[in-house]
């Protein structure tokens, strides 16, 4: 049976097929829209084979490819070799992006590193706030990826494949687990721009549900205009007038259902209810006035400023409301040139916000059940590009994880002395996905959907491994 049939039959089973039944639900909901406590959206996994450490994911995508060498991977040896030729033994015959075929010169880290956190881990001094919560964070310094250009690399990080058309990880997770949010989508995406001007494009396919049903696609929450596309009523139409129309639409649909028995009608009615509920709930979600100055100070944001920090605060609000997968994109990490100043901008934009998110969730008792992942789409070369920047690089990068199921205060794996290639406990993107699914209680190699003849999985065809060392 394919998933569409499954859904269609499931709807028949759960919603019942009589017009009275459907109409009754509809009318009750519309009479008092906010009282609509629709059942959480169920996933397809009937029971989880593993303990569920994390109930939700907040994935912080640092788009553009952050330099591990100016953030979390300490390479004093690279500083020593600054301006010296890169050892040829390391780079011969390897895949580079814009540096392909050029003279390769070592480029020392552009900012000092300092010991921080309970174990005195050296991280870049531009990130003191993240340093202050290192006890909750597991740094993975041995991450690698297959792709080396932004677009395919994002696809690989999001879907486990470089070919378009595969479901994003947020879609996989909501497909498997459903969502606890009754009046919000289960998979929400937020984007923010950096001040450095290297804002790489991001395609909507990055949060596409691919071959899974569209209801699992990521829904973008926007900082400007309608927070959700088409959320706001047309000019002149009040909520009451909107409600009256939806009431009539649902009644007429229920009457039609009584005559035709089309199971899609019950779903259609439920979706109009959901849409109407979202029209009320999303503005409430976006209204951060209720947060109070202390919280706003913690994050360092102003309501409505569209910043990464604001989005982190929104992520917490979404998490509280039961959203399953929250993905933030913060752009402007593509430092082919001027990495020294570029990283400074980025640190100012994300350092406090990341700390605030961890702290805030912790204070609310939600960190244990929330998995936070910080990751770009690739790392950057230890070689200089144009004397001030670094090129794309897929052999070493840093990713960090915190919260549900993750051991804090540790560093997992290592790159070589120059930060060129991961050498100890080398991790792949599929391993990262496997670990995330593991924390959510999902056995990654048994979680598949038939697509083009394959048991398609987020973790791909080849064997992926859960990073057991980093689990609590």
């Amino acid at each position, binding site marked *: 049976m394919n998933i569409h049939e499954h859904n269609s039959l499931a709807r028949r089973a759960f919603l019942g097929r009589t017009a009275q039944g459907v109409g009754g639900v509809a009318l009750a909901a519309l009479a008092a829209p906010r009282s609509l406590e629709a059942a959480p959206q169920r996933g397809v996994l009937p029971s989880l084979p593993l303990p569920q450490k994390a109930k939700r994911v907040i994935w912080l995508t640092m788009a553009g490819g952050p330099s591990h060498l100016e953030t979390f991977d300490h390479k004093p040896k690279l500083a020593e070799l600054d301006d010296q030729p890169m050892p040829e033994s390391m780079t011969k015959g390897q895949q580079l992006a814009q540096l392909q075929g050029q003279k390769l010169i070592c480029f020392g880290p552009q900012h000092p590193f300092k010991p921080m956190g309970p174990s005195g881990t050296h991280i870049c001094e531009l990130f003191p706030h993240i340093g202050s919560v290192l006890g909750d964070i597991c740094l993975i310094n041995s991450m690698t990826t297959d792709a080396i250009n932004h677009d395919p690399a994002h696809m690989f990080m999001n879907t486990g494949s470089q070919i378009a058309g595969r479901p994003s990880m947020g879609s996989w997770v909501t497909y498997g687990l459903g969502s606890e949010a009754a009046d919000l989508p289960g998979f929400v995406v937020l*984007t923010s721009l950096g001040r450095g001007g290297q804002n790489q*494009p991001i395609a909507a396919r990055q949060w596409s549900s691919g071959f899974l049903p569209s209801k699992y696609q990521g829904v973008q929450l926007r900082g400007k205009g309608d927070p959700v596309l088409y959320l706001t009523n047309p000019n002149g139409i009040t909520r009451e007038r909107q409600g009256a129309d*939806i009431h009539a639409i649902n009644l007429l649909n229920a009457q039609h259902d009584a005559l035709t028995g089309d199971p899609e009608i019950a779903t259609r009615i439920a979706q109009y209810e959901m849409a109407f509920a979202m029209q009320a709930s999303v503005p409430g979600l976006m209204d951060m006035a209720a947060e109070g100055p202390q919280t706003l100070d913690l994050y360092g944001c102003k309501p409505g400023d569209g910043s990464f920090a604001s989005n982190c605060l929104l992520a917490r609000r979404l998490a509280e409301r039961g959203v399953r997968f929250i993905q933030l994109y913060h752009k402007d990490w593509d430092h082919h040139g001027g990495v020294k100043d570029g990283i400074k901008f980025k640190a100012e934009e994300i350092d406090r916000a990341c700390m605030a998110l961890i702290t805030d969730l912790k204070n609310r008792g939600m960190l244990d059940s929330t998995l936070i992942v910080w990751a770009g789409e690739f790392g950057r070369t230890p070689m200089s590009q144009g004397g001030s920047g670094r090129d794309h690089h897929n052999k070493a990068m840093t990713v960090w994880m915190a919260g549900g199921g993750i051991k804090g205060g540790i560093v997992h794996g290592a790159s070589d002395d120059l930060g060129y290639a991961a050498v100890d406990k080398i991790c792949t993107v599929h391993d990262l996905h496997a670990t995330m699914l593991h924390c959510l209680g999902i056995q990654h190699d048994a979680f598949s959907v038939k697509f083009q003849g394959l048991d398609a999985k987020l973790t791909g065809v080849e064997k992926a491994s859960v990073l057991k060392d980093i689990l609590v």
Partner: protein
Amino acid sequence: MVHGFAGRRRGLSMLVIGLAYGWPIASPIIAAAAGPTAVEFNRDIRPILSDNCFSCHGPDSSHRQADLRLDLRDDAVAAGAIVPGKSAESTLVTRINVTDPDEIMPPPESHKKLDAKQKELLTRWIEQGAEYQKHWSYEPPVKADVPAGTNGIDHLVHKRLSALGLKPSAEADRRTLIRRLSFDLLGLPPTPEEVAAFEQDTTPDAYEKLVDRLLANPHYGERMAIGWLDVVRFADTCGYHSDKPRNIWPYRDWVIKSFNDNRPFDQFTIHQVAGDLLPDADQDSRVGSAFNRLLLSTDEGGAQAKDYEARMLTDRVRAIGATWLGQTTGCAQCHDHKFDPITARDFYSLGAFFADIQEGIIAQREDGMVVGTPEEHKRLAELDAALAAAKKNFDAIVPQLNVAQQQWEADLVAYKVMLPELAADSKASAGDKNLAKQVAASLAQEAAKRNGNDKKVLQDYFRTKATQLFKAERDGFAKAEQERNGFYASLAKCLVSVKSAAPRTVRILPRGNWMDETGEVIKPALPGYLPQPKIEGRELTRLDLAEWLVSRDNPLTARVVMNRLWKQFFGTGLSRVLDDLGAQGEPPTNPELLDWLACEFMDAKWDMKHMVRTIVTSATYRQTSVASSQLLAADPYNRELTRQSTFRVDAELVRDAALVSSGLFVPTIGGPSVKPYQPDGYWENLNFPVRTYPNDVGEKQYRRGLYTWWQRMFLHPSMVAFDAPSREECCAERTRSNIPQQALVLLNDPSYVEASRALAARLLTECSGSPEERMAWAWKRVLQRLPRVEEMETVMPLYRQQLAAYKADTKAADDLLKTGFASVPADIDKAELAAWTHVARVLLNLHETITRS
């Protein structure tokens, strides 16, 4: 094949269990539950072996375990896995029945498990001799005998239904029939007048006449094009990174025209794959060859040419696989296919057919070929000639002009002449003053030290400001250039296939790795497991591939195309997996029917309209879609065609229906893609360059959905909401979802709000009766039927309530009526119009409105 009632019951209960546990259900539910009849390899056994065993014991040699193949009978028998007639001696049977986790097959880590029914089938099949069959879709289709004068579809459907003990449903009513036909053949709802005419036509061939009329309607080509544009991934932008626009829309119009002109499908195919290589290649066939250019491309600075060369090759092979072969060729990019006999060599050999196509690997796409009328081409040739002549005249005077310039420069320097713009009392513009300053600065340099820009500044100034010499020649050249370029810019252009003199070298990429150049260099060749073309003594070309795709020997193309066509008219393919007719796909529920359609298609010389007519005039197509509860129980997914199906129309048609009902519809066919209203900032994540979305004004605002600008990275959100694919990959089958975003689009997207108020204005202008009569008018316009009593009782109070509200709040009415560009009739009461806008909006939001049944 006889299936009793008990068999059906068992089939259903299996289905229910399968549902509860999320098991995949063997497709012909009923057949699988048949009693102790002969086991058939293709129907019963291959799906089990393919899904559970072939991954390690199949065609892929690199992953094969224990050197055992179960996909080839001789190998399986030689290895003792199968002892025909003796299941107890067959290790296959032993291994699937042991309990030891180290021994059991499939092994636990595969997360595959055989159920009792599957084990029993395998055992019985071996007992019966373990006969293999070639995979069904690789065998040539066989045309069943159909009694003369009978529709082959009906004959074969009824044959199967009577074997199953099922009966077809009655014919649908006329209103349903014309609405169904209009959506299926034109993608548009019928007008109430057309419905009335059909309902009143008592001639015996009324239906057939209607079908002929619709097939002759030029909107037919648009409707047919939608599915094709999905599968070939037609889009207006390049797809990767910057997602820049490219010139490609003439191909879309070519597809529409091909369907309208009923271009035989073999020609349709050949033009797309190799229209540039035909001996009589012309503009038309070359535009068809734009197919080869529809793939994703990039102009990202850091991209590696070899990487993208490999991506483009694989993209093209997947496209051939999806569009014509129904094979998931993509699997063989890295290794021999695990389930189908396609090897990595087959994959790259197919890719080698396209190595001759000129394509910038890391580049912005070129303008493409000018697509014009003969007059336009003539005019362009004239302008080109005029430009060449003017240039010749100009070139002739350049040496003298240069001498004059040198003299002028020397004089300025020698006599320290101040340029007039730099005089204290000059009234020259700031721009001119600035230019003059640059000239002065350039002059200050020694002639030998001037850079390119210095020289250009001096030359421009001299020629435009300082001299009258040869003015006629210079002006003539400038004018000719301007005229030619202006005219060229106004012409349509299209990326097309252009053969390169030096084809790219194609190697097998080990594990798909583009950095590994150790693989063998490969020449174009067709997949080894399919019948080969009879060409010897020369290298195969793209044209050979194109002709082979539609040769009678190819068992796949006709089946693949007919299976997709079937979906358009019944909601599901005969084989449900449209993009995979291989081992992991689904054998067709009615194989005889799919084969008959495929053969009929080829016998009729690939006549698409003939096939469409055959399908829609069948009694099977004309059945009602309303299912009795018995029918629903016996055939829950309508796989046996005991009725018609009900489904929501495609994204484009949701829009079209609203435009037609409201009267805003602009029926123009073809032309550049259009930009309907779109929320501000929706493109904010595009970059290089940053872009805004200037929505179209005037007629372009009201064009059919299929003309919507197809921005791959951010497809129009109302299209996305209704499952239109981004067309980054070939899409043989759209999902058909039912999500809250669809409600938000129909309720709040300005296109639909505007359609609602236009429909309301039309209703108030064209129908002058009572509110009830107007309600009936609106119902007929949108749904082509009268409202039922309970519907009237639902919607009249809404109208009165909204009317009262707007009478009390006229500003709100004003605000609502300002949505969209369409004018508001001056002589209509605004509150009245606003209230009817709500009624119209409710109608345009109904499930029935966007459903074809």
